[in-house]
């Protein structure tokens, strides 16, 4: 090694060792007019960058379930959202997350000049499982609350229809009795009609009428209940999913906005005073 020399060598674990001779530093100090230490550091950084550029890389293909809308953070620093990533050779830490899923931490060893597949199935988060269960209970309860009076209304309408049919038949029978009375020319038959047949048919009509009243009242109550319950259940609040895993995941890495995440502030000076 001569007096004016700068050498860089790499160790086995990828670290760079910079060696600068004393004469070189003194000469550089004279020419550049800089502090020796700062100059040395600048050169060291340049060398390190050169070393890192020369490092080998490998590609990692992300095969994640769910196949879309997943995000991951590499080495607890860089948040990304892509299906393929090129990383330097070696061990990397990945934190993967997708909406409604649980965050999964995994370590991946990237092999240089090779494309590797990372297959991960993100399990559903407990909050999402609880939300789905609560949503299911909510929907079931709402469905039953709405369909039960509808079934009752449908039953009431059928009952009313049948009751109207029976009432109509009973009425027809009485009308036939009335016609029979009007044209009958046998006093004995008329007596039997007035004392037996018509009172019996009147009773049948009264029964049919009572049945019709009950059916109509039931239908009316069912209709009112359907209307009331429909209005009431419309005000029920649907369960909302609060994705706490997203909050945790967002907190792991800083994500710049489109504008670069610039902090803006202003200062006002009152010139009138």
């Amino acid at each position: 090694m001569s007096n004016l020399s700068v050498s860089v060598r790499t160790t086995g674990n990828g670290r760079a060792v910079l060696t600068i001779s004393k004469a070189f530093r003194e000469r550089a100090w004279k020419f550049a007019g800089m502090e020796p230490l700062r100059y040395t550091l600048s050169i060291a950084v340049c060398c390190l960058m050169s070393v890192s550029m020369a490092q080998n890389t490998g590609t990692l293909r992300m095969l994640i379930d769910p196949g879309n809308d997943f995000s991951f953070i590499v080495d607890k620093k860089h948040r990304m959202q892509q299906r393929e990533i090129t990383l330097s050779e070696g061990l990397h830490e990945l934190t993967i997350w997708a909406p409604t899923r649980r965050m999964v931490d995994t370590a991946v060893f990237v092999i240089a000049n090779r494309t590797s597949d990372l297959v991960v199935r993100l399990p559903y988060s407990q909050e999402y499982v609880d939300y789905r269960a609560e949503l299911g209970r909510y929907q079931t309860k709402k469905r039953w609350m709405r369909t039960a009076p509808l079934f009752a209304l449908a039953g009431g309408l059928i009952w009313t229809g049948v009751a109207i049919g029976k009432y109509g038949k009973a009425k027809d029978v009485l009308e036939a009795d009335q016609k029979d009375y009007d044209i009958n020319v046998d006093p004995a038959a008329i007596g039997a009609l007035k004392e037996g047949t018509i009172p019996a048919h009147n009773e049948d009509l009264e029964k049919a009428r009572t049945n019709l009243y009950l059916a109509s009242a039931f239908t009316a109550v069912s209709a009112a209940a359907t209307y009331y319950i429909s209005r009431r259940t419309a005000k029920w609040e649907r369960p909302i999913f609060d994705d706490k895993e997203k909050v945790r995941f967002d907190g792991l890495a800083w994500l710049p906005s489109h504008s670069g995440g610039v902090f803006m502030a202003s200062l006002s000076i009152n010139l009138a005073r």
Partner: protein
Amino acid sequence: MMNKVIALLMFCFLITTVACKKDLIDVASLTTNPFDPDYSGAPIFTYLSDTTIDELVNGSPVSTLTIEVQVHTEYFGRPTTYQVAYNDGTGPSTPSNNIPNGLLTIRIPNVVGGQEYCNLLRLANGGAYGGGNTICVTAD
């Protein structure tokens, strides 16, 4: 809105209730068939004329009151054969084939001049009596 729906339902219910009440037959009001014993309509038998004639029966003079009566068959529900019974069925019956054009002739023998004679005429058929009315005539 809810109140209007309930009011409308109650109104329909009341209308139905009132309408259905009218469908029953009031047996007591069935008095329009002339063959009904409870008939209370227009008179079935109406007086047309009368004559009192003196006849000789077994050689003795007898006054006989003859009354012409119209039988209103147009009140019948349908054309039919019938009988007319006198004195509420205690007297003889006349079949309809002896009542041409509904003109019935009643003969009351042994009448006394100036005395009123009333006869309850009733329609009959099949051995049972229907409606009727009384015809009163004063003998000459």
